């Protein structure tokens, strides 16, 4: 019973990590930009949800507003900054570092560093087959699975999703067959940012919201991006659930204070022995 509970907890946390990682890996895999400011989108998404819930509209509007607001912010950032550094890894990375400083410190000034919480839509817990399950955690797990599946179907089935994948394989080739590169770039950025916003809302419904909350999910998102194979969305999702399980089993049965270290060990091992990651999309070129 204890084991099952730990596993479910791991899946829930892992799902949150995966939601962050999908955004990172989409933007990196398709556009070649390693967006360090992704974590700040998660943080802003959580604050959006806090203010919407506090104004009495409830959780579901908060989720939608959070996703739409972060998608819009992503669009603005893409138009102003990232589209000018598309082909340059290092410039894109550096620009995103600058954005971290701006967003995080403005957020600290505007929202004060005090931690905040909002009431989850499903408080309390319920009994199922002898297990005591937190309702909100199960809701988050369900929502995460829904988001991941929706994102996957969008990329696989829709016309624009196919265009995105084509661009990920070969930008020039995609342009030659008539895909509008600048439009697709914007869509990818909006999609990734909306996923970050959703992750932020779900984070906020479980944990404290502070202006500095971005670092931990971002670090996990990066670990998953490598573990899953740079640029592979299914890889990031599977790796996310695995990392959540490893963390929750590790902190339950080994040491809880080393929780954040397990992912890092996984990352080192993966780089040493499985360099292409789980679903090795873009193989690391070795010299």
């Amino acid at each position, binding site marked *: 019973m204890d084991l099952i509970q730990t596993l479910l907890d791991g899946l829930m946390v892992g799902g949150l990590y995966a939601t962050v990682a999908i955004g990172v890996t989409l933007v990196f895999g398709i556009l070649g930009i390693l967006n360090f400011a992704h974590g700040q989108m998660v943080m802003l998404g959580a604050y959006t949800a806090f203010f919407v819930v506090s104004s009495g509209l409830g959780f579901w509007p908060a989720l939608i507003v959070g996703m739409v607001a972060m998608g819009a912010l992503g669009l603005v950032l893409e138009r102003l900054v990232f589209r000018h550094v598309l082909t340059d890894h290092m410039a894109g990375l550096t620009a995103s570092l600058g954005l971290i400083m701006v967003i995080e*410190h403005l957020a600290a000034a505007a929202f004060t560093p005090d931690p905040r919480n909002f009431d989850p839509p499903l408080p309390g817990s319920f009994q199922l087959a002898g297990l005591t399950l937190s309702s909100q955690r199960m809701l988050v797990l369900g929502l995460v699975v829904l988001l991941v599946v929706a994102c996957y179907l969008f990329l696989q089935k829709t016309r624009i999703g196919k265009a995105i994948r084509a661009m990920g394989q070969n930008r020039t080739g995609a342009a030659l067959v008539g895909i509008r590169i600048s439009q697709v770039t914007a869509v990818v950025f909006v999609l990734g940012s909306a996923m970050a916003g959703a992750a932020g809302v779900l984070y906020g419904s479980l944990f404290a919201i502070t202006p500095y909350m971005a670092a931990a999910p971002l670090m996990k998102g990066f670990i998953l991006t490598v573990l899953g194979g740079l640029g592979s969305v299914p890889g990031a999702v599977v790796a996310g659930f695995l990392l959540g399980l490893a963390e929750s089993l590790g902190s339950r049965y080994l040491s809880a204070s080393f929780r954040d270290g397990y992912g890092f060990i996984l990352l080192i091992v993966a780089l*040493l022995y499985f360099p292409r990651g789980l679903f090795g999309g873009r193989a690391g070129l070795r010299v």
Partner: protein
Amino acid sequence: MSTSLDMPTVPSLPRVSSMRQKVAAAVPWLGWISLAVLLVLPVLGGSRYLVYLGTLIALQAALATSLNIVMGYAGQFAMSHAAFYGFGAYASALLVSAAGLSFWAAVPLAMLMAGVLAALIGYPALRYTGGVHLALITFAFGELARLVAANWHTLTGGPMGMRVMYAPAPLLGMDFSSSKGLYWLAAGMLLACLLVSVAIQRSRFGRGLVAVREDETLASFLGINVVGYKLAAYVISSMLAAMVGCAYAPIMNFISPELLSAHETISLIGVLILGGIGTVAGPIIGTLVFFGIPEMLRVARLYRLVIVGVIIVLVVLFMPKGVAGVLRDRVERWKRGVA
């Protein structure tokens, strides 16, 4: 494209005046002389505030110079620089206060430990081209190091930080217990980093690093051990960061886990980009501008960091070569008599 008949398509080489070449050759020396003046200035001024400010700027410039070795010359994105800086501070403080070593014995020991750690982190990540792996793994490592420093209460004092109550013992007749003495310690760190940086730049190793930065595949065809070179640059740069960290502890009398945060590394990267990445003068010019402007503006620390972020983004978009890079290009063109 319009073609004009009377213009030669290949510009004939302009006659280079020897005067121009001599003046251009003097520019680096001018830089060194201004550095010497700048270094002496805080001590002569006699104001305590100026000495304090000079110490901070010297430390930051030393860090930026050491980061420039791996980022500027080798072109590898290391996000762990602040972590090694903090590692050096914590390690030397513990070696001195808990293990009873002298400061001058603790510095090489802390550097050695940092070097081993950097090799362990760097090797798995640097085996692949592109540098993205290193950025990811070093960011994760830096965050992990900060969490360890904040949570290992018995060793580091946890998030409340650690007090440091010692001054380095006198060395070569220099006394390091006064604020001026500590200023010279920081300035010495800067000079040591500069020395290593210049030595690397002029060596075969340094030219190899630049080749790796420009094209890893081509560099490997030229017989350069690409992984070895990248790893050596990362290890040297991290060891120097730890060395500067050793000086941080007695200067500030206080170490907190915030020292290891990614923001410190981001500031340093901003300094490099602004000053001119891959140049000797760039890190120092960048530090002066970065810390000078907010100091003059006298704005709150919070908004200072916002300004830092805005500067980073603007420089990446509009002046990717940085101040020193632009200056170098100007001098080169002037020397060739083009402008």
